[in-house]
């Protein structure tokens, strides 16, 4: 192990395919046209001194340290801003250049503290390196005025800003603009007064800074420095792994000191993130060693009992004996399990294998049930595969981008930055969202159309867009005739041309002016490359699957599939939503989305797993709760999922959990579900395990153990122990063996192995004999359906049954915020609370005024399912009649009010539409008080039982 520092070529790579030959210091070199002289030199190992250049941002030519001489040319051009040309002869080192460079460095150092030995950047300072490189031996200047006493800004919880060490190279400013796209930093003042300034001379925390860390990474000195490095010193080795937050799946270098993570640095070679990160992935890893971690197995007979710490052997045997007892008493189908998108592929595969083969039923489900199950259904039906069609980089070729029900800058920030980059380059944007998300108007980006629809009317909008495309003949019939099922197309065309789908007819339903719909449809259909990106604002509806199908129909009808720059792209919420679904976590499908009733597939798994398997679909999560309450399902194994907080109609969920005879929770914290559990098996964080995650672009990336599991076992090992105790033998020595088995039984994973992932860094499935290095873009020749043709389906708009009434006149919709993640179990245990310490209810000023509600007031939110209380945030980001909240804190009880309405095809909950009334109140709700008391009691029972020593 070593730090294995990533090479900085000084300027970004050129994408040109044309090659140019030149000579540098007598060495011949051939590089793509457009490459800088600096990068060309670096590519052959000649590192020209530099300070303001770094290969993550465009060259700037300000420090002049990188000057060179070119034969026949005049003066000394900066090599970072000078592009290569055929036949150039470049000299990078001679006495004259050395003198100039020393002079420049002398000026820099004359206004820089000489505290190198005690500086936090000691050992990782480019200024220090350059002083050495140019041979600086003395500083002759004695300046009267310096910046050495400039005040330090420590307002950001993760990094400090020390202007006394700033050389005003602008790398941070450019990183904020070019990489992140936030434009929070600027150079304030002129000449000697020039200084880096967040916002209008504000502290970092008061500025627009989103704490992505791009500036910290770009800084060549100790000016912007991680506080963890200031506190602990420089790391000594690094291990590349994959982030455990959202579905972007960023690659990171975990920079370590022994088993302590000093910092997470986004990996330049990471193909999903290209060296960028967000505040969660880069900084919010402290939860992994938080004091709330539980590291010893625990059992108890009843949830009224205190927990009792036991050995692993005792806990596993107790869990297995309980599950066997329940099966003996209530039948084989009375138990099941839930996997999580936070688990690795290998862990998820093992859990579903344990349930299908060890429990003998198909009662396995995953949290994708409550997020992207409609994506799985809709895209499987239409395209033949339950996945997005593109890689992330495809967005850089899109001309028109339609974002539906997604908030990339908050939910998928690193991809959001890539999308903003393309929009700044001139691509047009259509946003379909009830709320004014940041993307609608952000620096140098303005949506061409914001279709501000009423919640629950997605299908009416997509039908109206398709109606315009069909009736105005904006179709790509050549694509349809060649690539799609023409009979289904003709049927759909007739259906969608019916007058009820016209934008004018649906305007009163959707609230979107017909002219806007028509203009947006023309823009999308007329684009050379039109790309659709969508999120949970599409799926979490009673017509979630219908909407996914509608999106697929529109993309096929306009020929926006099968090439770079187009496609249908679900932005997955959690790190391994795609993978957990791929691994057969749904109760009706084996790994690779093959139905359990298919005899040939079942025979394959029966042979591999050496046991008979059920041909019947098992229970989905909401069905499990119903079955628990009728007494037919009373044993549950939950790995990495917090159903007691994240699932809708939470009172119903809690009642179901209380009705169960044995709930086994495997997690790193005593989460809300564990408060209803009888067995607690301590899990391992992503830093403590080996495995793989699959992101939203089907990219399988490595998760690597950087420290020993705090509880002694990786999660796959715990599942294996449970399987063996249940009498179903599992004997894997390493997750790579699990992946080998996955590859052997899953055609789209046939070519996947740890050796290949190590070699390529990551690989996108399908990866098999035909596509041995993976598939960035799907359906390029034919769709994955049996006949290879894309299928159009009819998408009638069916109004939700969750209707506003005089009693519940507002629609509540939900979403997430940049700094917190999902149910908050991880981010709430980090400094990210500095940005978002509580969930609030966004309410339009008109609705607030009607109710006498002012900013910060406590408001009761009541639906037909329940009532909770939050503080109000009065804002016109939401439209009148709509209120909005996040769901990151359990005490908020957002799911007390969400209902049991769900998607017709998959039972994905309709989180996005709940009819509510909002009133000003003075105290928290009865449910919140009761739950707080229950929760406090559970923590007391934990306290009484643990030593955790």
């Amino acid at each position, binding site marked *: 192990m070593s730090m294995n520092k990533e090479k900085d070529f000084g300027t970004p790579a050129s994408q040109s395919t044309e090659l140019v030959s030149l000579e540098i210091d007598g060495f011949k070199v051939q590089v793509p046209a457009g490459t800088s002289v600096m990068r060309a030199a670096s590519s052959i190992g000649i590192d020209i001194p530099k300070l303001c250049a770094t290969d993550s941002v465009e060259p700037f030519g300000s420090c002049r340290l990188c000057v060179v001489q070119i034969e026949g040319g005049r003066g000394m051009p900066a090599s970072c801003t000078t592009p290569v040309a055929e036949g150039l002869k470049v000299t990078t080192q001679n006495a004259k250049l050395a003198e100039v460079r020393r002079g420049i460095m002398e000026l820099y150092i004359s206004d820089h503290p000489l505290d190198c030995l005690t500086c936090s950047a000691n050992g990782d300072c480019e200024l220090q390196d350059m002083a050495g490189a140019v041979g600086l031996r003395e500083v002759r200047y004695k300046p009267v005025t310096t910046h050495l006493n400039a005040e330090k800004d420590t307002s950001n919880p993760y990094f400090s800003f020390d202007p006394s060490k700033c050389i005003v190279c602008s790398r941070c400013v450019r990183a904020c603009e070019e990489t992140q796209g936030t434009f929070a930093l600027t150079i304030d003042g002129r000449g000697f007064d020039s200084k880096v300034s967040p916002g209008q001379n504000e502290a970092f925390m008061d500025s627009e800074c989103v704490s992505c860390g791009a500036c910290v990474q770009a800084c060549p000195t100790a000016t912007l420095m991680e506080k963890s490095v200031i506190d602990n010193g420089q790391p000594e080795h690094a291990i590349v792994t994959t982030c455990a937050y959202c579905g972007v799946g960023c690659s990171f270098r975990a920079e370590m000191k022994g088993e302590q993570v000093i910092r997470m640095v986004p990996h330049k070679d990471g193909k999903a993130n290209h060296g960028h990160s967000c505040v969660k992935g880069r900084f919010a890893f402290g939860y992994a060693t938080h004091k709330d971690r539980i590291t010893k197995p625990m059992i108890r007979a009843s949830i009224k009992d205190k927990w009792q710490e036991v050995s692993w052997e005792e806990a596993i045997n107790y869990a297995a004996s309980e599950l066997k007892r329940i099966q003996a008493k209530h039948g084989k189908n009375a138990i099941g399990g839930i996997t999580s998108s936070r688990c690795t592929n290998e862990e998820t595969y093992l859990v579903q294998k344990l349930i299908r083969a060890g429990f003998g039923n198909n009662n396995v489900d995953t949290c994708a049930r409550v997020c992207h199950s409609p994506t799985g259904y809709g895209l499987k039906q239409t395209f033949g595969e339950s996945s997005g069609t593109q890689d992330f980089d495809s967005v850089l070729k899109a001309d028109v981008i339609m974002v539906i029900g997604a908030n990339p800058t908050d939910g998928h920030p690193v991809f959001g930055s890539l999308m903003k980059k393309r929009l700044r380059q001139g691509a047009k944007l259509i946003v379909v969202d009830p709320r004014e998300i940041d993307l609608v108007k952000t620096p140098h980006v303005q949506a061409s159309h914001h279709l501000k629809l009423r919640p629950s009317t997605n299908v009416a909008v997509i039908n109206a867009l398709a109606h315009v495309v069909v009736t105005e003949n904006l179709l790509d019939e050549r694509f349809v005739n060649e690539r799609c099922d023409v009979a289904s197309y003709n049927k759909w065309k007739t259906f969608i041309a019916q007058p009820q789908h016209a934008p004018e007819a649906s305007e009163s339903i959707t609230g979107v002016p017909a002219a806007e719909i028509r203009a947006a449809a023309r823009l999308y259909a007329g684009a050379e490359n039109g790309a659709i990106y969508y999120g949970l604002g599409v799926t979490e509806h009673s017509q979630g*699957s219908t909407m996914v199908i509608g999106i697929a129909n529109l993309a096929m009808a306009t020929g926006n599939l099968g090439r770079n720059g187009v496609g249908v792209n679900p932005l997955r919420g959690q790190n391994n939503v795609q993978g957990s679904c791929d691994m057969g976590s749904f109760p*009706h499908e084996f790994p690779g989305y093959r139905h359990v*009733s298919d005899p040939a597939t079942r025979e394959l798994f029966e042979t591999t797993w050496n046991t008979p398997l059920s041909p019947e*679909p098992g*229970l989905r999560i909401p069905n499990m709760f119903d079955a628990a309450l009728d007494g037919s399902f009373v044993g549950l194994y939950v790995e990495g999922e917090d159903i007691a907080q994240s699932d809708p109609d939470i009172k119903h969920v809690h009642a179901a959990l209380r009705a169960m005879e044995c709930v086994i929770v495997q997690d790193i914290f005593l989460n809300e579900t564990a408060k209803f559990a009888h067995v607690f098996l301590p899990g391992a964080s992503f830093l403590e395990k080996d495995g793989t995650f699959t992101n939203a672009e089907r990219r399988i990336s490595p998760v690597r153990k950087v420290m020993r599991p705090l509880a002694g076992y990786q999660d796959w090992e715990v599942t294996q122990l449970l399987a063996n105790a249940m009498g179903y033998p599992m004997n894997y020595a390493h997750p790579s063996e699990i992946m080998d088995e996955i590859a052997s039984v899953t055609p789209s994973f046939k070519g996947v192995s740890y050796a290949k992932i190590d070699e390529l860094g990551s690989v996108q499935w399908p990866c098999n004999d035909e596509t041995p290095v993976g598939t960035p873009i799907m359906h390029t020749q034919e769709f994955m359906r049996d006949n290879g043709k894309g299928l159009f389906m009819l998408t009638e708009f069916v109004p939700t049954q969750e209707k506003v009434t005089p009693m519940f006149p507002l629609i509540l919709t939900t979403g997430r915020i940049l700094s917190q993640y999902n149910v908050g179990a991880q981010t709430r245990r980090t400094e990210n609370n500095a940005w978002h310490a509580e969930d609030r209810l966004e309410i339009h000023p008109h609705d607030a005024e009607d109710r006498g509600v002012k900013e910060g007031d406590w408001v009761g939110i009541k639906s037909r399912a329940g009532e909770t209380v939050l503080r109000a945030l009065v804002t016109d980001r939401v439209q009148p009649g709509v209120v909005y909240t996040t769901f990151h804190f359990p005490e908020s009880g957002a799911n007390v009010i969400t209902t049991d309405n769900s998607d017709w095809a998959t039972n994905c909950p309709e989180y996005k539409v709940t009819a509510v009334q909002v009133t000003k109140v003075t105290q928290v709700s009865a449910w919140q008080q009761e739950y707080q008391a229950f929760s406090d009691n559970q923590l007391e029972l934990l306290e009484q039982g643990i030593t955790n020593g």
Partner: protein
Amino acid sequence: MKTERLIKMANDISNFFNADPDKQVAAEGVKNHILRSWDPRMRAAIIEYCQKDGAELSDLAKAAVQKLS
């Protein structure tokens, strides 16, 4: 299983397939969807309800559940 929930699920599924003008095709779609995604105890419960009463099921849902029997 709560029968009311199963009825609602069957009717919701039917609302999607009801877009097909050919009601035989629509009923087949509903039947296949239930067959491929419902646990046997759920199917048994809806069949039992349909045979005993079925009043709350939409026409299409009823036709589909009858095909399941």
